[in-house]
């Protein structure tokens, strides 16, 4: 129930895995699902497009395992509180997966330990810091040229966001 999702690279961000039985869409932007629940026999995961709604073609997605209590919360809470608990001001640290997509197709994913108690601003700041480090580590490895090129472009976008105030 508490395991991080392992997305398949190349898949659409809202359909990251073949084992998903059903996708419950909670929100969309320009017709693209941006928030929802991925339901599979063993576990349910919340997915959320955290950054990258309008500019560029990169977007950053989060996949977080949710328990039954959190699933009930998603069904019953005020719309403005959907992420409170599973992601914002979480009561406990949890392993989530961060995915990065170009044109909504995932090309990078890493597991991340989301600290407990993060508010929106802290989560964004920590997320960008984590991604920058993950990109640097990836670029130090022997990547195929095509993958290196897209990871390098994405790292520059994330660095620019961090430098220009998005990561503070």
């Amino acid at each position, binding site marked *: 129930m508490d395991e991080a999702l392992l997305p398949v690279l190349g898949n659409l961000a809202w359909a990251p895995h073949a084992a998903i039985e059903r996708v419950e869409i909670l*929100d969309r932007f*320009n017709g*693209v699902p941006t928030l929802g629940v991925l339901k599979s026999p063993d576990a349910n995961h919340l997915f959320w497009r955290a*950054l990258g709604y*309008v500019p560029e073609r990169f977007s950053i997605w989060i996949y977080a395992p949710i328990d039954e209590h959190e699933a009930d919360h998603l*069904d019953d809470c005020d719309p403005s509180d959907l992420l409170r608990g599973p992601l914002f001001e979480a009561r406990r640290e949890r392993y989530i997966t961060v995915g990065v997509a170009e044109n*909504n197709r995932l090309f990078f994913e890493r597991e991340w330990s989301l600290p407990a108690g993060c508010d929106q601003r802290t989560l964004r700041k920590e997320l960008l810091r984590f991604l920058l480090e993950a990109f640097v580590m990836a670029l130090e490895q022997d990547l195929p040229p095509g993958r290196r090129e897209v990871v390098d472009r994405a790292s520059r976008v994330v660095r620019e*966001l961090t430098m220009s105030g*998005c990561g503070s």
Partner: protein
Amino acid sequence: MGGGRKPPYEIPNESTLTQYGERPPGGEGFRSALRPETGETEMSLIIGEVSAEQASLLVTKMVQPFADRRLTTAGRLRECDFRVVHSPTRGNPLHVSVFPPEIAPDEPAEWDRAMAELFDQCFTDEDKAGGDSDG
């Protein structure tokens, strides 16, 4: 079912609508055309005049530092033959879908450059759309 879900309603022509945008360094600002190759099928707007921060919360669930907004009315979009439909989601009860004009029944026109310019022209440069703020 919870969270104050309300059924869709017919949006009056005089209703102000807000489009969410983002202006990071080198960013595009606002979308004026669909990207079908990425799965986009409609243009999302918000019922009423809301601030950039409110629009950011409704769309992204987070206050985004580069959030922006621009305004139009349902009537202005309809005058250009765009179809404007209230399509509430669980996360955004004020969600509005804008579809391209139909060139035949169930056959939407392509959202090409000319349509993008037409869509852009529906929005005001001013900070007021001239309609009701009924969000």
